C-alpha cells in the first residue's frame, strides 16, 4: 500500500496546472462572468456540434517536469556526439557562454514577439541592426535584412527577387555546380512552379553557359561546396554582360579574410550565420542572411530594421519598408516570409560584438591555418589548391578506409566521389588536428595551400563602436541586459496578440534545447548517430497526427508561411499525379492572412479572392459561385479555422464539401489551432492538409520574430507528396517533391519544446488548455463589451479563442485612432493586441490559456481606463491634440524633465493606475516616426567615426 501511495503522491499532472493560468476558483468566477455553468457547457455553446470530436488516445498520459526532462535527456543521450567536420554550410562553433545563458536561455529575449510595436522593442531592434551591419559589411553590400530562414531558402529568395527584377523576362537561372546540394534542391523546388528553368553548369564552363542562356541570374557559392576558393569576379562580370544579376552564397567567416562578393560586383549575397555561435542543433534553427545592392532594397524579402527618429527627434528603430511584405502586398509580395530567425540573428550579431573584428579574424585565421596544416600533413593529393576551411583529399580507393578510420576516431567527414572533404571549424583542437593528420597518413608539419593570391580582404568590417567596446564580460553582460530591459516580453506582462498565441514557453520545455546531445549534432551526420532525434521526431509526428486527425506529418517547414507553401506543393503534386496538373486556381477568402496569397503564388497557383459576409464568415454563395466558375481549374481553398475573425464558422464542413465537389483540396491554415486541440481537428472539419505553428499552439517561443516551426499534416492521399531531402532519406517519402528547407527536419533543435509540452499535458491537459483559452477570450470579451464593441461572435454569442475590439468609432468624437490606444497601452506596461488586422481600426485580443484571471483583469482595467481617457477627450474634458493618448508613450526622460507643458499631469501620463507604479515599465523612446524612417532609409549602425564625432560634439556643448 505504501508504495502505491508513494507513487500517487508524485503529481504527474502537475504541469497542467502550471501551464494553464487560472486555477479552479478563477475558472469558476470567469464562467460565472460569461454565463456558462461549466467549461463543457461553454464549449458546447462555442464550438459547432457537427465538428466536435477527436481521438487523442495515441497520446501518453501526462508526466511532470522531472519526468519529461528525464525522458528528453535519455533521447538526447541516444544521439552520438561526434566531431562533425562535414561542412555543407554547418560548422562546429563555440557559443560564448555569456551569450548562451543571457540570450539563448533567457526568456527576456526568447519570449518576445516580432518587433511590430517598435517603441517597446528597441533592444532587439538594436541587436538586429548590429546583425544587419555585420552582414552588410562582411558581404560588401550596403543593405542587409534582419534574417531569413536558412541558407538554402535565402538563395531561393534571392533567385525569385532577381527573377522579379529582370526586365528582359528571361526564365533561365544558371547555377554553378559547386553549390551546396541542399541549396540546389531547395532552389529547384522553388523555381519549378513559377516557371524558372535551372541550368547547372560546371565552374569551368560557367561563362560560356551564361553567354548562351542569357539568364536572369547566376548563382554561385563562395567558397564552393568542396571548399574551393576562386576569384568569382569574372563570372560576375559575365553575368552582368548577359544582363543577369549575380547572386553569391558566401561563408561569413571566410569573408573576414577574403574579398567580399560585393566588392567583386555581386548584386545579392546570401548565406547562413550559424557558425557565429549558434549550435548545430541537427540543422536548425539558424539565421540565414541576405544582403543586396542599394537598387534592390525595395525588393528585399523579409524584415528590415531601419533607423528613424521618435516624436522628440531622438534616434529610434523600427521595421522599415513594410509595404514590401506579404501582410500588405499579399499576392504581389516579393516573398511569403513572415517569421524569420530573430533570436539566432541576435546571437550571431552578439558573437561579433563579443569577439570584435580582430577576434573574428583571429578565429578565421586559426580555422584556415588548421586546414592548411592538414593539407600539408596528408599523404593524399589535394583536389583544390585554394581553400578557406575545407580541404578535399583524393583518397581514391582508400576512401572507405579513411572514412571508417575517421569514424572510429570520432570524426564525421564528408564522402565525395573518390575523395574525402574535411571542413575545419573553431572547435577543432590541436590534438584533434594531429589525429586527423594521422588519419590522412601524415603528421602536422608545414602548411600547404590556402587563400589564393589577390583575394585577401583589404576593407575593414564591424567598425562601429558596438563591435569594439564590449569585449570584457561585464561590459557584454550589461550591454545585453540594457537591450533586454528596453523590451516587453512575456516575462514582463501578457502579450495579447490575436492570431499569435503568445502562451507560456515553460522553462522545463526550453532546457532540453541546449542539451549537448541535441545541440551538437550535424544535420548530415550518419543517421545512426541521430537515433535519439529520430525517435523524438517520429513520436512527435505521431502525436501531431493524433491532434490533427491526419495520416502523416512533415516537420521540415521552418515557419507557418513555409508550411503553407509546402502544403500547397503537396496539393499540386497530388493533382499532377492524378493527371490534373492544369488545376491551378486557389480560392482564398478576403479575411485570410497575407501569407496565404503570397504562398499560393509561390506554389504556382492563381489567387481568386472570395468574399466574406457582414459577420466575417466566408460568403457561401460567393464561394459556391467561384468554385463553380473555376471548377475545371480549381486546385485548392485556403481557409483559417476558427476564422481570422475569431469565430467557429458553422458552415465549415459545407465549405470543405463544396471545394471537394469541384475537384479541389482544402488547405487549413493552422494559425488558430489553439482553439481546436482536443475539441475538433483539421480532419474533422473536412480539410486535407494543414500547417501547425509549433511556435504558437505548441509552445515554441517566438524568439522576438523567430524561430518558428510550421509542420504540415496531411490526409493519407497526400502523404506520398510530403517534402523530402536529397541527403537524408528518413526526412520524407521517396515520392515527395523535394525539400523546402536546407535541413532534413527543419529546426530539429527546438522540437523538444513541443515534445515536452505534449508529454507534460497529455490529452486531458491539451483539451483543458483549449477550453481555458476559449474561456479566457470570452471572459475578456464579457469584461470589455460594455466599453468596446466586440466585432464578431459565433451563432450563440460566443467568441472563439480571441476577440476583436472595434475602435473605429473613437475617431469621430475625440479623434483617437487605434494606434493611439496601442501606444497608450505601453504606458500601462502592456504590448498592444494585434492592431488593424484582420479589420482596420480594431484590436484583436488573444489571451491564451496561460494567463491568470489576475493578469486578464489587469489588462481589462488598462483597456477600461483608456476608454475613460478617450471619453474625456470626446466630452471636451481633455484637449483633442494634447492628451495622454496622442502623446503616448511617455518616456522617463520626458516625465522627469524640468519642463512639462501638457494639460494633464505627469502622474496621469506615467502612473495611470495604482498597480502601474508597482512595476513601472518605461518605454525607452517616444512614438517612432515611420514616415521619416522610410523616406530616409538607414539600416546599419553609424560607423565608429560618426560615433566619435557625436561624443566630441556632446562634450563640446
Amino acid at each position, binding site marked *: 500500500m505504501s508504495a502505491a501511495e508513494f507513487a500517487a503522491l508524485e503529481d504527474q499532472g502537475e504541469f497542467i496546472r502550471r501551464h494553464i493560468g487560472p486555477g479552479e476558483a478563477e475558472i469558476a468566477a470567469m464562467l460565472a462572468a460569461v454565463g456558462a455553468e461549466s467549461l463543457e457547457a461553454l464549449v458546447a455553446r462555442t464550438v459547432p456540434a457537427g465538428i466536435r470530436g477527436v481521438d487523442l488516445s495515441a497520446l501518453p498520459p501526462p508526466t511532470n517536469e522531472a519526468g519529461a526532462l528525464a525522458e528528453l535527456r535519455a533521447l538526447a543521450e541516444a544521439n552520438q556526439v561526434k566531431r562533425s567536420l562535414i561542412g555543407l554550410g554547418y560548422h562546429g562553433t563555440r557559443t560564448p557562454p555569456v551569450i548562451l545563458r543571457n540570450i539563448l536561455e533567457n526568456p527576456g529575449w526568447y519570449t518576445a514577439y516580432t518587433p511590430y510595436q517598435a517603441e517597446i522593442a528597441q533592444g532587439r531592434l538594436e541587436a538586429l541592426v548590429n546583425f544587419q551591419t555585420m552582414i552588410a559589411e562582411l558581404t560588401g553590400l550596403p543593405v542587409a535584412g534582419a534574417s531569413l530562414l536558412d541558407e538554402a531558402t535565402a538563395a531561393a529568395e534571392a533567385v525569385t527577387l532577381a527573377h522579379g527584377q529582370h526586365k528582359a523576362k528571361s526564365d533561365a537561372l544558371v547555377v554553378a555546380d559547386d553549390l551546396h546540394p541542399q541549396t540546389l534542391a531547395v532552389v529547384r523546388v522553388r523555381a519549378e512552379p513559377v516557371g524558372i528553368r535551372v541550368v547547372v553548369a560546371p565552374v569551368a564552363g560557367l561563362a560560356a553557359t551564361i553567354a548562351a542562356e542569357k539568364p536572369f541570374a547566376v548563382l554561385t557559392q563562395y567558397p564552393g561546396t568542396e571548399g574551393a576558393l576562386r576569384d568569382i569576379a569574372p563570372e560576375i562580370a559575365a553575368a552582368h554582360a548577359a544582363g543577369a544579376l549575380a547572386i553569391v552564397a558566401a561563408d561569413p567567416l571566410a569573408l573576414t579574410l577574403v574579398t567580399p562578393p560585393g566588392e567583386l560586383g555581386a548584386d545579392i549575397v546570401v548565406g547562413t550565420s550559424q557558425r557565429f555561435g549558434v549550435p548545430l542543433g541537427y540543422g536548425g534553427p539558424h539565421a540565414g542572411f541576405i544582403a543586396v545592392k542599394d537598387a534592390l532594397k*525595395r525588393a528585399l524579402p523579409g524584415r528590415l530594421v531601419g533607423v528613424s527618429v521618435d516624436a522628440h527627434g531622438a534616434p529610434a528603430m523600427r521595421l522599415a519598408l*513594410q*509595404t514590401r511584405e506579404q501582410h*500588405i502586398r499579399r499576392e*504581389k509580395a516579393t516573398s511569403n516570409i513572415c517569421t524569420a530567425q530573430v533570436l539566432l540573428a541576435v546571437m550571431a550579431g552578439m558573437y561579433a560584438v563579443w569577439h570584435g573584428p580582430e577576434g573574428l579574424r583571429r578565429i578565421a585565421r586559426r580555422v584556415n591555418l588548421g586546414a592548411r596544416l592538414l593539407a600539408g600533413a596528408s599523404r593524399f593529393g589535394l583536389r583544390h589548391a585554394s581553400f578557406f576551411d575545407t580541404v578535399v583529399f583524393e583518397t581514391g580507393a582508400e576512401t572507405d578506409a579513411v572514412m571508417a578510420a575517421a569514424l572510429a576516431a570520432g570524426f564525421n567527414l564528408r564522402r565525395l566521389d573518390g575523395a574525402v572533404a574535411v571542413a575545419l571549424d573553431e572547435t577543432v583542437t590541436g590534438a584533434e588536428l594531429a589525429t586527423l593528420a594521422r588519419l590522412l597518413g601524415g603528421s602536422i608539419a608545414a602548411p600547404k595551400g590556402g587563400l589564393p593570391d589577390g583575394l585577401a580582404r583589404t576593407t575593414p568590417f564591424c567598425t562601429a563602436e558596438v563591435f569594439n567596446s564590449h569585449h570584457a564580460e561585464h561590459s557584454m553582460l550589461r550591454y545585453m541586459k540594457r537591450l533586454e530591459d528596453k523590451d516587453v516580453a512575456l516575462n514582463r506582462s501578457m502579450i495579447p496578440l490575436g492570431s499569435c498565441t503568445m502562451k507560456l514557453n515553460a522553462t522545463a520545455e526550453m532546457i532540453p534545447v541546449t542539451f549537448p546531445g541535441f545541440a551538437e549534432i550535424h544535420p548530415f551526420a550518419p543517421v545512426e548517430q541521430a537515433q535519439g532525434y529520430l525517435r523524438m521526431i517520429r513520436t512527435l509526428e505521431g502525436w501531431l497526427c493524433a491532434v490533427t486527425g491526419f495520416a502523416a506529418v512533415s516537420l521540415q517547414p521552418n515557419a507557418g508561411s513555409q508550411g503553407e507553401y509546402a502544403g500547397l506543393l503537396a496539393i499540386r503534386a497530388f493533382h499532377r499525379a492524378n493527371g490534373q496538373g492544369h488545376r491551378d486556381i486557389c480560392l482564398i477568402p478576403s479575411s485570410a492572412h497575407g501569407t496565404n496569397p503570397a504562398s499560393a503564388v509561390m506554389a504556382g497557383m492563381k489567387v481568386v479572392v472570395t468574399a466574406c459576409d457582414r459577420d466575417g464568415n466566408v460568403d457561401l454563395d460567393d464561394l459556391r459561385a467561384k468554385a463553380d466558375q473555376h471548377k475545371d481549374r480549381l486546385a485548392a481553398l485556403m481557409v483559417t479555422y476558427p476564422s481570422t475573425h475569431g469565430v467557429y464558422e458553422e458552415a465549415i464542413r459545407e465549405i470543405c464539401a463544396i471545394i471537394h465537389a469541384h475537384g479541389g483540396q482544402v488547405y487549413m491554415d493552422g494559425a488558430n489551432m489553439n482553439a481546436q486541440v482536443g475539441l475538433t481537428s483539421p480532419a474533422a472539419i473536412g480539410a486535407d492538409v494543414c500547417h501547425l505553428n509549433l511556435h504558437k499552439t505548441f509552445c515554441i517561443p517566438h524568439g522576438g520574430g523567430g524561430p518558428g516551426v510550421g509542420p504540415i499534416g496531411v490526409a493519407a492521399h497526400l502523404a506520398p507528396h510530403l517534402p523530402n531531402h536529397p541527403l537524408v532519406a528518413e526526412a520524407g517519402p521517396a515520392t515527395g517533391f523535394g525539400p523546402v528547407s536546407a535541413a532534413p527536419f527543419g529546426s530539429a533543435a527546438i522540437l523538444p519544446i513541443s515534445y515536452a509540452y505534449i508529454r507534460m499535458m497529455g490529452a486531458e491537459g491539451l483539451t483543458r488548455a483549449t477550453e481555458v483559452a476559449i474561456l479566457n477570450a470570452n471572459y475578456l470579451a464579457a469584461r470589455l463589451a460594455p466599453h468596446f464593441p466586440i466585432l464578431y461572435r459565433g451563432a450563440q454569442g460566443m467568441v472563439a479563442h480571441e476577440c476583436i475590439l472595434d475602435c473605429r468609432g473613437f475617431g469621430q468624437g475625440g479623434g483617437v485612432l487605434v494606434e493611439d490606444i496601442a501606444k497608450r497601452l505601453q504606458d500601462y506596461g502592456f504590448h498592444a493586441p494585434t492592431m488593424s488586422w484582420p479589420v482596420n481600426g480594431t484590436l484583436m485580443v488573444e489571451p491564451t490559456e496561460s494567463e491568470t484571471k489576475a493578469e486578464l483583469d489587469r489588462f481589462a482595467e488598462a483597456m477600461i481606463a483608456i476608454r475613460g481617457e478617450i471619453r474625456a477627450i470626446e466630452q471636451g474634458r481633455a484637449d483633442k491634440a494634447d492628451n495622454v493618448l496622442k502623446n503616448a508613450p511617455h518616456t522617463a526622460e520626458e516625465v522627469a524633465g524640468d519642463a512639462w507643458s501638457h494639460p494633464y499631469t505627469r502622474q496621469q501620463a506615467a502612473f495611470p493606475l495604482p498597480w502601474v507604479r508597482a512595476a513601472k515599465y518605461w518605454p525607452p523612446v517616444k512614438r517612432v516616426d*515611420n*514616415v521619416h524612417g*522610410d*523616406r530616409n532609409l538607414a539600416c546599419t549602425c553609424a560607423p565608429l567615426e560618426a560615433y566619435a564625432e557625436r561624443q566630441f560634439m556632446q562634450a563640446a556643448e
Partner: protein
Amino acid sequence: MTTKFTKDHEWLRQDGEAWTVGITDHAQNALGDVVFVDLPEPGRVVEAGEAIAVVESVKAASDVYAPIAGKVVEVNAALVDDPALINQSPTDAGWFFRIAPSGALPDDLMDSDAYARHVESAT
C-alpha cells in the same frame, strides 16, 4: 483646360499635346504620407490601364495606371527626392508623368462632378 478623372483615383489634364497625370487628393489622403514613388522610363509606350508607376506610403503600396494609351514624354523627377509633394500638392506639383496619347481617350473617364459621386459611392 479640362481635368478628367479615372475610377482608380487618378486625374489627367491636357497640357498642349500631352496629358499630365497624377493621383487625386482623395487617393493621397487614403494612402497617407507617401515615402516612395517608382516612375516609368520616359519614351515608354504604354497601353491604357497598364500599371506603369508605383506609389508607397508606410502602410500601403499602390500601382498607378496609364489612363490613356500613348507614349510617356516626361516624368516628375522631383517626386523621387521629395515624395511628400504628392501629399502637399497632389494635383499640381505632385504630378507623376505626361503621356502623348496615341488614339482616342477611353470613354469611361469622369468629369469632376462624376468623380465626386464616384468617391461618395465608394466610401
